[in-house]
């Protein structure tokens, strides 16, 4: 038998077993933490983004998150477009041009890197060719690749944040009766899709000192919202050093407000078409509703010709 296949099969089986064991122990321990639901302007079947909140959230991203995390599925132009933070185009252009994480490019000779020479003309190394960002470019983080990120971050990888709220959700810890008969119908009726934002808010506001009997790994932080309670990310926001908002930004800066705003901003980054989706959704629902009623009346009329 092929040894490569055998070993990959064995690895998969081992992985599946590990997972089921991990899941068992997590479930036995009560699973992840309880995540409190927050109220969001973009929640439910009618919610829309709050432009001012997205602008504040971008500021939090810019001043804190972007030190480690990229936002590469969002282009600078998206910050200008309707349904988002809707910053003025000129301001975004200027910001993109000054953004420290520049765009990889080709040299005039068509190369990714150019030779560095000292003043005697001796080759001393290479440097990547980079240029300032334009509106059409993605918002990049500080690291060129995973290896560079891990090397700089004590082995941890700060994920790109473009989809972070979509890629997280909250678990339902209720028994089956409440879960299936109460919570699920309620969530479907109100259009609850904000689990990722709820989780992110909880994560950002749940850093704490570990309990006495808890052993933290080296360089790890204690966080009650994070599964397993040990997270590599240092607290990105803090009570004592809030990210200040300008006069007229619509809210007063605090740890909670910073967290709420950046969670809203990243929800937009993960789902930039939400405003249009829900607006068109209601137009479609209205059309379908009227047509359904008309078709029902037509059906009733047709069937009134016979006993049935």
């Amino acid at each position: 038998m092929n040894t490569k296949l055998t070993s990959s099969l064995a690895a998969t089986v081992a992985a599946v077993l590990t997972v089921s064991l991990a899941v068992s122990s997590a479930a036995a321990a009560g699973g992840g933490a309880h995540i409190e639901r927050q109220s969001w302007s973009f929640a439910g079947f009618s919610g829309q983004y709050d432009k001012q909140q997205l602008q504040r959230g971008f500021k939090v991203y810019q001043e804190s998150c972007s030190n480690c995390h990229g936002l590469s599925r969002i282009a600078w132009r998206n910050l200008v477009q309707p349904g988002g933070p809707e910053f003025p185009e000129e301001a975004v252009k200027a910001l993109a041009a000054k953004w420290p994480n520049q765009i990889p490019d080709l040299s005039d000779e068509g190369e990714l890197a150019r030779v560095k020479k000292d003043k005697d003309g001796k080759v001393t190394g290479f440097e990547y060719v980079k240029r300032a960002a334009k509106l059409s470019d993605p918002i990049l983080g500080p690291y060129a690749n995973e290896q560079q990120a891990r090397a700089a971050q004590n082995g941890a990888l700060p994920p790109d944040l473009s989809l972070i709220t979509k890629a997280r959700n909250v678990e339902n810890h209720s028994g089956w009766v409440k879960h299936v008969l109460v919570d699920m119908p309620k969530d479907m009726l109100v259009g609850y899709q904000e689990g990722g934002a709820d989780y992110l808010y909880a994560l950002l506001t749940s850093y704490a000192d570990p309990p006495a009997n808890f052993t933290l790994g080296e360089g790890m932080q204690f966080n009650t919202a994070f599964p397993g309670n040990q997270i590599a990310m240092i607290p990105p926001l803090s009570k004592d050093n809030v990210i200040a908002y300008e006069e007229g930004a619509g809210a007063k800066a605090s740890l909670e407000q910073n967290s709420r705003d950046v969670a809203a901003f990243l929800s937009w980054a993960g789902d930039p078409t939400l405003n249009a989706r829900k607006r068109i959704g209601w137009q479609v629902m209205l059309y379908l509703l009227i047509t359904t009623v008309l078709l029902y009346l037509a059906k009733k009329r047709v069937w009134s010709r016979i006993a049935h």
Partner: protein
Amino acid sequence: MGSHESTYAPKSRLAKWWDERLPVMRLMSDQLIEFPTPRNINYLWTFGGILVLCLVVQLVTGIVLAMHYHGTAADAFNSVEHIRRNVNYGWLIRNLHAVGASMFFLAAYIHMFRGLYYGSYKAPREILWILGVFIILAMMATAFMGYSLPWGQMSFWAVTVITNLFSSLDGIIPGVGTAIVEWLWGGYSVGGATLTRFFSLHYLLPFVIVGLVVLHIWALHIVGQNNPTGVEIKTREDWVPMHPFATSKDLFAMFAFLLLFAWFVFFLPDYLGHADNYIEANPLVTPPHIVPEWYFLPFYAILRAIPSKLGGVIAMFASIVVLVFIPWLDTSRVKSTKYRPIYRWFFLLLVIACLALGYLGAKPAEGDYIMWARIFTAYYFAHFLIIMPIVGIIETPRTLPRSIAESVLGPSAAVEKR
């Protein structure tokens, strides 16, 4: 084709000329307009039309998505994000397709339970029913491969777990399971080759489904529709022409169904999916909780309920294959469960067992969950293999109406006022 005489009479010379060469208008007229529809069928009979609608939605949206999608391991995830973010109305097409798969299964399951309840699998509809079982199998294969295409974490690990099931065949003939797995993967692990072939098959299988659906509808139009009494059409009083009666009802039901469909597309596009599928596939990181889409959960629960891997795989496939045999496992003299005082309680238990297996499939396989999964799995098979044959023999059915018309108009069978 069809069990009734053609009533089509070409009105113009051109229509007559055409009719003598390719009687497609005659086919339409006989099968879609004049086709005899039992006058007593209820709204559960509208799901056939709804399913055709679902199939068309999946085909149209799928073909458009394929114009923007890249079926390679490096680009698949990015291309789905490109569709969501940059393609004009890409988010709409993608939501329609993803939610559409769920709606397709929802309608198919209702359609199947309707057939089970009213005995629509019994003679003369055995072939019609078995074609339906083939369709649901083809749908499952298509949906499974489609779910791999976004190449997120759940895509990748669902493919890994499910394709690995075939390795259990090594327990029967050593080497065969491994060979099948290797053949499915196109290599020694799930990777780009697997994705590319799944994309190809995901595009092919829907057309196989179309073919099966044509046969399914053909068979339906030979034997005619069943109805809530299970009594066949006997006289002219028993039926109404398909148009405008069934068509007006189907159209209303389709739009009512579209309301639910649109609710999920616009307001809950990710509710039926899994957050982990917004993380790009990574062979080195296993998600904490690998679960299939909701429509596979009952089968997943059966798979995990059996303590042996091979046994679980056999049970999972058997849970569908057993449906092929129920036309002969059901020994009842009457079709409709409405007239079966004992069996109707067992039918209720079957529905509960299927829903419970769905819930348990989403839970970790441990402790009480696994015990309940075993109980409901045992019931699922016992229902078809033991209860159906035995209850059919010992039960005395309630008296059937003499005709469909009598069930609607009362024993006097009044002449309809048309």
